[in-house]
């Protein structure tokens, strides 16, 4: 799993460090200061402590895995930052691959609260360097893992999430209800009509790029209409399975994948994890082909992950939660910069 909700941060007001540099000095003005209030940084520390206590009470082990690795995700929409050297190393876009190797080694339930890096992601809810809370539960499927995400969020955001069970809606049902289209079967032309009806025309998609169109509709038409509080969306299109298992249903093939939204903010992404090494290798190859077609760099594949899957990943579900966004929700912050000591522009 990997995190969906990569958080990140926004443009910030303040002096441009590149401007007005005289005599080698920098006209930094007040931009040495943290962008988060000190009270928010204290809240952030309390939330991290509460998350750790939540997992400790459930016997989930905290682990640490490398940020720098020889391989990187081939997923075309994730840009791994490269650290120069011989050989170069890749800053991890999520701890998923290393954590799955621990699972295959038989470690049992694990979690990690750590940094992840995604190049080019900067905005109101994105910073290229951010914090993920990622955990894996052997023996659970994605529905049981949603239960645990709900329990964690109720413990961490009690003022945002009431005692009533959070609604869980299938992706297909959500699209049919809100936009009148079936995302699993609609043609690109039908999706284009839905995009036009929502006033979202503008981006140019390849003729067969259904997923790009669906992602546009999801992010800018469906999500803004979600109810407040915690909402789960699950059973994504098989073409957006990423590292989740795919299951045949009466709707056709769907991915055993979910996302959690709180007050319409994408907060977490979870999978019933794919354990089939051959299928994983095929998906990696398809991602690499997508990168080649788009003229993107092709990083080395993680052969050690594939070897671990071949050795046997226990049946498990995993989820990654954007911790900075969790702090934003707890603090009532509008931008990620309000919860980061030093966002990218001031780092």
């Amino acid at each position, binding site marked *: 799993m990997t995190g969906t909700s990569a958080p990140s941060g926004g443009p910030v007001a303040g002096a441009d460090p590149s401007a007005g540099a005289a005599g080698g000095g920098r006209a930094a003005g007040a931009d040495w200061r943290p962008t988060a209030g000190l009270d928010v940084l204290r809240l952030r520390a309390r939330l991290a402590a509460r998350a750790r206590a939540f997992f400790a009470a459930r016997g989930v082990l905290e682990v640490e895995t490398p940020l720098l690795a020889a391989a990187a995700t081939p997923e075309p929409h994730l840009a791994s930052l490269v650290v120069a050297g011989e050989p170069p190393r890749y800053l991890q876009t999520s701890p998923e691959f290393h954590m799955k190797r621990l699972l295959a080694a038989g470690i049992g339930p694990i979690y990690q609260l750590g940094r992840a890096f995604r190049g080019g992601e900067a905005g109101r809810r994105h910073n290229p360097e951010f914090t993920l809370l990622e955990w894996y539960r052997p023996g659970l499927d994605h529905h049981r893992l949603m239960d645990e995400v709900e329990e964690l969020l109720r413990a961490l955001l009690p003022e945002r999430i009431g005692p009533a069970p959070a609604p869980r809606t299938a992706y297909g049902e959500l699209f049919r209800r809100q936009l009148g289209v079936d995302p699993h079967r609609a043609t690109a032309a039908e999706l284009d009509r839905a995009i036009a009806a929502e006033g979202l*025309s503008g981006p140019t998609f390849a003729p067969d790029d259904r997923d790009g169109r669906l992602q546009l509709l*999801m*992010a800018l038409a469906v999500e803004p209409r979600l109810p407040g509080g915690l909402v789960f969306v699950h059973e994504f299109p098989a073409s957006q399975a990423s590292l989740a298992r795919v299951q045949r249903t009466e709707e056709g093939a769907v991915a055993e994948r979910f996302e959690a939204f709180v007050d319409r903010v994408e907060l977490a992404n979870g999978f019933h994890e794919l354990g089939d090494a051959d299928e994983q290798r095929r998906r990696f190859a398809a991602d690499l082909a997508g990168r080649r077609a788009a003229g993107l760099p092709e990083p080395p594949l993680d052969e050690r992950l594939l070897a671990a899957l071949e050795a046997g990943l226990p049946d498990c579900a995993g989820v990654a939660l954007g911790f900075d966004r969790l702090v934003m929700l707890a603090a009532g912050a509008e931008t990620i910069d309000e919860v980061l000591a030093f966002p990218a522009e001031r780092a």
Partner: protein
Amino acid sequence: MPSYSTNELRSGLKVMIDGEPCNIVDTEFVKPGKGQAFVRVKYRVLTTGRVNERTLKSGEGLEAADVHETDMQYLYDDGSSWHFMEPSSYEQYEASAEAVGDAAQWLREQDVCTVTLYNNVPLSVTPPKFVTLEITQTDPGVRGDTSSGGTKPATLETGAVVKVPLFIQQGEVIKVDTRIGEYVSRAKD
């Protein structure tokens, strides 16, 4: 013209959208954790003032608009168009009444104002924030009423009408804030 990639888009940038020069008002980066990134661009169409939104895929670009602002001296109007001169090159530009718009009521010959050029043709004219103009007509104020905060209309030499305090007399020169069209003070000599 060069073009800007989505990660270069910033508010204040002038770009072409649907064949019209536009000023970017705001941008928002939108990206699902798994999937394509998009940029929502809010922009003002410079020819109409309309504000609109456009969504781009991350990596797509917008062509830069050949729009720039420059200070020019207002020379005269010939009844149908307005003539300006760029003081360093002495080059003259002709602006339509539409481009001059509301700025007309504040412009006095020789005054320097800001002209926005699109493909080297004036698109809009912004008067100085403050202008000092003579009052050509106003009724005498009622003596002894100066503390009431009352105002009266006064016509200025350019034809603009502003509200002035009752103690201001015809023939006086006053300072006006053109952004809100209000009297500021008597001009200091």
